[in-house]
């Protein structure tokens, strides 16, 4: 019977605990897109996102045994990255680099959404990014944000209505 991606990740993580570099490399290849995209949308610049996503994997390498198995490896990685994003945003308030097509953002819709996201509070932005843009289920997003599914659903409803208002303002 084929193993689920999460089971595969857990096996890889066990090897990472034993300092198996190839296992870490496989984990990087599997999750770098998600992690980088998530960080980029939360902190707003490609350089910061690249640095934070890399740092998350390096922390995983050094402290893989801190994983308690209470969530998926993907969620664990996102939590590490989210903490780092929050630290960074706290240290230097959103510089939110200049947005240009081709620089991280791929199309016009992405550009519009990114601009609007930047006007949301960090917690609202993170919720929207995880669920709507990174395509994680509500359960997975709740795991990362260390909240329950009901509370996250409520947060998403409020965040969506704020986002709509911002986008409507943009159109006017």
């Amino acid at each position, binding site marked *: 019977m084929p193993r689920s991606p999460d089971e595969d990740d857990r096996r890889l993580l066990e090897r990472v605990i034993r*300092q198996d*570099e190839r296992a*870490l*490399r496989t984990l*990087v*290849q599997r999750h*770098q*897109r998600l*992690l*980088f*995209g998530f960080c*980029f*949308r939360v902190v707003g610049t*490609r350089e910061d996102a*690249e640095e934070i*996503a*890399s740092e998350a*994997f*390096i922390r995983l*390498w050094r402290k893989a045994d801190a994983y308690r198995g209470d969530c998926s490896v993907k969620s664990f990685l996102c939590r590490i990255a989210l903490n780092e994003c929050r630290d960074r945003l706290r240290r230097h308030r959103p510089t939110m680099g200049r947005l240009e097509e081709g620089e*991280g*953002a*791929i*199309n016009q*819709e*992405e550009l*519009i*959404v*990114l601009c609007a996201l930047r006007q949301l509070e960090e917690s609202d932005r993170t919720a*929207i990014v995880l669920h*709507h*843009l*990174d395509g994680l289920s509500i359960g997975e997003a709740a795991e990362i944000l260390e909240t329950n599914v009901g509370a996250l659903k409520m947060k998403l409803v409020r965040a*969506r209505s704020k*986002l*709509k208002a911002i*986008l*409507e303002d943009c*159109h006017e």
Partner: protein
Amino acid sequence: MNDRELDALLNAAMRVDSPNLWKRIRPQLDCGPSWVEIRWACAIGLLVLAVWASLPSVHRPGEENFESVALKSRMRKEALAATMKY
């Protein structure tokens, strides 16, 4: 803007392309050379050795010196032994 329009916009917002993070991560792992690097180093070492061994054995000044030093040393020992006899 209604919910459906918002969903359509969010769906249209593509995933961002990620750079190759491994290049950035690898040097920071503090775990010495990778297997690939070790294999390359061994392969290059073997190649150099093979090329050196296949060179025609012509005049090698180092070897000649070594031989002559060994010869002189032997001769000295023989001379010493002969002297001790008398």
